[in-house]
């Protein structure tokens, strides 16, 4: 898509493109776009805007309870292909905090995209805006200006509940302080999102939790409370917890800051391994120079502005 095309699209049209990207086979979910699905003119508008012409048919898929939109010659394939590639797209992303009379601009018009399955590090000194950016990507905060697409969804205008639902379904978090729930065992901590966020049946929960505890090498300590685990072990449990919901994206804010050098390496290697095993996009922030090189793609961020960093591929600024 060119810049001119982007500007000419309405919000609804963007939503349609996002849906098409998300569902691949030109499918529109009625729960999101009932009015749109009822009136194909929006879809036609999108295609015309894109200077594509196609014979569009709409039919009700009773089995799945959705409207399907099919296009002869599949002119949407390009959009899908392009969309399929990107996990995160930020356009003119800014965040300003108001502290009394003083406005602090933490992020200044960031443009970037991160491909699916990438292992990306945001690097920069303290206060450079890394955590703010991760908070925006994690839908914990909203940008002051600009647009942000995460997993093919426009997340900039999410309500609090929508954001929570989106996080629970799509994003895993790894925190600097591990943030395990102290009254729950390692097993229960990993199980927690499956109970409280996704309501997964007990048998499936057990299977997934044990699988992940084994993957992070914590199977033998599954009954331990966090107080009885070392820092590295806690972070392994946290990684398992982040992955247990099968998220498309894992965000880790300074995941090795509280760990010694060897443990930090171990955690980064584990994150890389799980990224490959589970085909998950990993985005983490760090200012730990010892582990930066482990990242495949590095974004350097200074004073709220992205600088060209070590671009190993897959992302553009």
């Amino acid at each position, binding site marked *: 898509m060119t810049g001119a095309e982007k500007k000419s699209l309405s919000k609804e049209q963007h939503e349609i493109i996002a849906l098409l990207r998300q569902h691949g086979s030109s499918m529109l979910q009625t729960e999101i776009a009932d009015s749109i699905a009822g009136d194909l003119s929006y879809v036609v508008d999108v295609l015309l805007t894109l200077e594509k012409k196609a014979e569009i048919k709409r039919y009700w898929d009773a089995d799945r309870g959705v409207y399907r939109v099919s296009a002869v010659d599949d002119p949407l394939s390009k959009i899908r292909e392009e969309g399929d590639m990107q996990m995160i797209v930020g356009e003119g992303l800014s965040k300003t905090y108001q502290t009394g009379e003083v406005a602090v601009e933490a992020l200044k018009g960031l443009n970037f995209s991160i491909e699916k399955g990438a292992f990306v590090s945001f690097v920069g000194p303290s206060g450079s805006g890394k955590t703010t950016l991760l*908070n925006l990507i*994690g839908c*914990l*905060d909203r940008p002051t200006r600009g647009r942000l697409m995460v997993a093919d969804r426009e997340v900039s205008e999410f309500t*609090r*509940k929508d954001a*929570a*639902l*989106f*996080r*629970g*379904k799509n*994003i*895993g*978090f790894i*925190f600097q*302080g591990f*943030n395990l*729930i*102290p*009254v*729950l065992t390692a097993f229960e901590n990993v199980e*927690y*999102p499956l*109970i*409280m*966020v996704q309501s997964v049946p007990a048998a499936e929960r057990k299977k997934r939790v044990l699988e992940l505890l084994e993957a992070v090498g914590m199977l033998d300590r599954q009954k331990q409370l966090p107080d009885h685990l070392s820092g590295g072990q806690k972070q392994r449990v946290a990684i398992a*917890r*982040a992955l247990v*919901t099968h998220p498309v994206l894992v965000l880790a804010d300074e995941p090795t800051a509280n760990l010694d050098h060897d443990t930090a390496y171990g955690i980064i290697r584990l994150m890389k391994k799980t990224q490959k095993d589970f085909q998950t996009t990993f985005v983490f922030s760090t200012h730990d120079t010892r582990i930066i090189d482990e990242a495949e793609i590095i974004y350097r961020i200074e004073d709220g502005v992205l600088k060209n960093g070590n671009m190993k591929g897959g992302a553009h600024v």
Partner: protein
Amino acid sequence: MFNLFKIAMRNLLRYKRRTLLTLGLIALGVVFVAVFVAITGSFKNMMIGQITDSFVGHMQIHRRGFLASVETLPLTMNMKPNAVRKVENLLQETAGIEAVSPRIKFGGMFSNFAETSSIRLNGVFPEEEMRTVPLFLSRIQEGSGNLNKGEILIPELLARGMKVKVGDAVVIIATNQDGSVNGRQFVVGGIIESATGPGGRDGYIHIEDAMEVLRMDEMEISEIAVRVKDFSRLQAVYADLERALSGEKNKMGQPAFEVHTWEKLSPFYNIARMIDVMTLFIKIMLIAIVLISIMNVMIMAVYERVREIGTMAAIGTLPGKILSLFVVEGFGLGLVGAAGGSLISCAVIYIINFSKITYDFGRQKGIIISAGISPEELVMISIIVILVSILASLQPAVKASRMDPIEALGHI
């Protein structure tokens, strides 16, 4: 839901000492209220029983206007035989009535041939009176309560003041309905204990003796005391009776009779109401104790777990579930506190009854405390505690659920 409970209970056990202190406070409050209710309830029931079963009866029926002028006991306000028959017929048709006792009440002079004093008397059918007020006999201090014709039962205060003993001859003089005066000699058959309330210091004679003293050709009744089979259904029987009696009109077209329950007849009803009000205040104190202690604990819990709340929110826990988690913790405290308090209350009540503690009330000495609380009352106290616990945990829970995840995660 089970998992929510599991997590909530684990959180409560995280700070064992604080949780135990809170539970102790709630349980103590429950014990205090339950034991208070048990003791005051037993006292109230005992007093109501004493009053209704020893002289007042559960209900009384009078000719309209009699009660307003009861101090003078006007014979002109008595029910004529025809009216009495009507009332008795209605009483027979009304379900739930165990016994009735017609009475002729009048005032007169009492003389021991040396001194003279005033006296209020009840002319009764002894058997019917005993069935209607079965504790009457327990008031007999000396002599017998048989109340044969020619005998009189006199209140102990009068007996003491006039220095009269059982077997002594005394004279009763009374003004008749037509204004003339008549007198008759009686033998003191017994001395009865005085009691608090209207009629508690009256003497008793046989109803036919009363007719003779008052020179009545036909039996004219001042009041009909009524005893119901099941005291807990008193209000229902009263309503039925009142409805039935309301059909009987006097010459003015107004209801000819009036019926009152013991509550309207005895000043002790006000004491009973005071006991109820005190119980209400004690319950309000319990609510305050539970409210403050639970709210305090839950506010502390939220404050101490800000980062944890932030983590839960960040990983996608919906605000409603975070709220539920804290409400369930409050509910858990209330439930365990109420259950523990109820068990301890039962134990304390058992110990009180086992110890046979006595007390004096007025002229009654050595009354054994017979504490008792109904399961319904105990359940009601527990429900109040649990509801208040939920209410108290709501504010902290709402605060937790509305926390901004970023601020919460950054909390130190």
